[in-house]
């Protein structure tokens, strides 16, 4: 652990921490607003899984792309998307990143390398293979990353995508955020394979499994996979074991029925707390600086909320725009 910590600069770790705080506060705020009856609909929190998007996306550069799934707040913030535009998109306002056309699940910002979040389980995988195919055909060292859950490993798109990427040796990283549940269904009820990464052997691709709650561990595993892809060594199936400590969806509130003991166990490994503890222990963050950072992030989210509230709804006629190029 020490080795990993020291390979990351203080600046980088603090940046990770800030992003994870931002994700956490974004989800908390969304939950509060929904509880207050605000008009925000189907929204999937990333609470408890924040380390994965942060640690993975930290390796991406201009010209790389990610294909997020519907549990996308983390992916979007990790890629540096503006939380004002994200918050306004939750409301379907014209100041939203997609001008209200996408909504919580489908937020996109092509200027930041973020394709629209895909709401169909496994649907992120083939397009990411295509982005990687383009990178290879254009002879660049760009990579693509797609995100999906453990549930997605049973759908055809996963198998077809891995097979194609391996066959053509494409620079794509398949990131499975294995939070052990697909909605209310535990993985063992739906998959004969417990370690998702095992699936890689059927397609002769590289695999890595790492803990998903420790951002340093995520950063390291992702770094190796992304470097391999950039060097032309083909795809990796990268599995992170993690846990969602909020309901599957905030509105409607869905599936809070995971066993309490399991939830409690994972809450002790909360990625934000884990990183904070490490930073404080290593004297990289004082209590005072931490409080200040938390306050700054809270302000940023409040500003985003104010922006979203003030942003007008799109005019109804806009429904017909943006369909064809």
């Amino acid at each position, binding site marked *: 652990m020490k080795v990993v910590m020291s390979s990351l600069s203080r600046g980088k770790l603090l940046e990770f921490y800030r992003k994870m705080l931002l994700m956490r506060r974004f989800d908390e705020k969304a939950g509060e607003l929904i509880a207050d009856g605000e008009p925000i609909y189907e929204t999937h929190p990333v609470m408890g899984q924040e380390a994965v998007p942060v640690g993975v996306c930290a390796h991406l550069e201009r010209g790389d*792309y990610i*294909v997020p799934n519907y549990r996308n707040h983390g992916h979007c913030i990790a890629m540096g998307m503006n939380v004002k535009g994200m918050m306004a998109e939750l409301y379907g306002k014209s100041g*939203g*990143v*997609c*001008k*209200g*056309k*996408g*909504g919580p699940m*489908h937020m*996109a*910002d*092509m*200027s930041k390398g973020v*394709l*629209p979040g*895909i*709401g*169909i389980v496994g*649907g992120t*995988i*083939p*397009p*990411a*293979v*295509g*982005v*990687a*195919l*383009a*990178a290879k*055909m*254009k002879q660049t060292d760009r990579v*693509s990353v797609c995100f999906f859950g453990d549930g997605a490993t049973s759908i*055809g*798109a996963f198998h*077809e*995508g891995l*097979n*194609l990427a391996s*066959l*053509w040796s494409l620079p794509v990283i398949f990131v499975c955020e294995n939070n052990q549940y697909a909605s209310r269904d535990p993985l063992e009820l739906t998959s004969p394979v417990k370690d998702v990464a095992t699936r890689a052997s059927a397609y002769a691709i590289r695999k890595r499994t790492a803990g998903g709650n420790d951002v340093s561990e995520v950063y390291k595993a992702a770094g190796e996979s992304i470097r391999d892809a950039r060097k032309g060594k083909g795809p990796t199936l990268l599995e992170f074991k993690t846990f969602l400590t909020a309901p599957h969806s905030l509105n409607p509130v869905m599936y809070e029925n995971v066993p309490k003991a399991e939830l409690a166990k994972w809450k002790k490994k909360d990625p934000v707390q884990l990183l904070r503890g490490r930073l404080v222990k290593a004297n990289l963050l004082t209590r005072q600086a931490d409080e200040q950072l938390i306050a700054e992030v809270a302000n940023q989210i409040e500003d985003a909320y104010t922006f979203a509230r003030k942003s007008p709804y799109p005019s109804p006629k806009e429904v017909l*725009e*943006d*369909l*064809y*190029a």
Partner: protein
Amino acid sequence: MREISYNDAINEALSEEMSRDDAVFLMGEGVHSPAALVDRFGTERVRTTPISENGFGGTAVGAAVVGLRPVVEFRNAAFLLSGFDQIVSNAAKLRYMSGGQLTIPVVFMLSFSSGLRRGAQHSFNPLSWFANCPGLKIVVPSTAYDAKGLLKTAIRDNNPVIYMRQGMVATTRGEVPRKDYTIPFGSAEIRREGVDVTILATLNSVSMSLAVAEKLAKQGISAEVVDPRSLVPLDKKKILSSVEKTGRLVVVDESYETAGLASALAAIVAEEGFQYLKCPIKRVSTLDVPFPYSPPLEDYMLPTPEKITKAVRETFNTKSR
């Protein structure tokens, strides 16, 4: 002018477009054969895929989002059912849901077989389904000339295009210029001029309707045959002005009767051209059953010259307004 086959016209368009623009490439099962395109462009740009329609359909979408212009050969439209998710949920929707941040210049080439005795699962016409996916454009080339010109336009278009061939049509030959030409989408073609009745027909129904029109001419009925050539966008103007001229409309299309394309086209004319109509619109569609294998059964369910003739006659028999 030189006559070539419909399929050669397609290959010529592919070859010309691939030479014109490095971003264009072809992918699909079996595209390595015939070898002419591979010999010329190599296996990188003429990319044989595994049998994974959802996988390579979606791969094409991703490649298109970041600047390539894939042409995907699905062959039989029925196989595309295994890739439906990527066409419907991603190709058709990503641009819209991103608020117009991206473009998806991809062509999905499909064919459907009817009348070729291929049985229920290999004879599938998804045109009316795709017409219900806003975000896709749909072209229906019924001649070798259109096959080349519409494919070139499809490849240059910045939207996902369904390029639908039909088995019967793909065996035809026709005059095709050697030169580079494109056919704009949304421009219907009057295949035959007439003054008494408009027959609006797609794909294989076009040549069938032309033959019917020739016969009717001898019996004193002058039929105008209109081929929309693209269904999305649709050349409403030309269709309506033909009906304005003739006052009668028969729509012939091989999608199913229930909620099929003929219904949709008839509804447009009923709504926007009712004042021109002398009598009710007639539809000739495919009967609502899966495709049977037995020839007399399959023939009975499809549009035929007899059914078209009967429909035209009925527009004269019903009391005019």
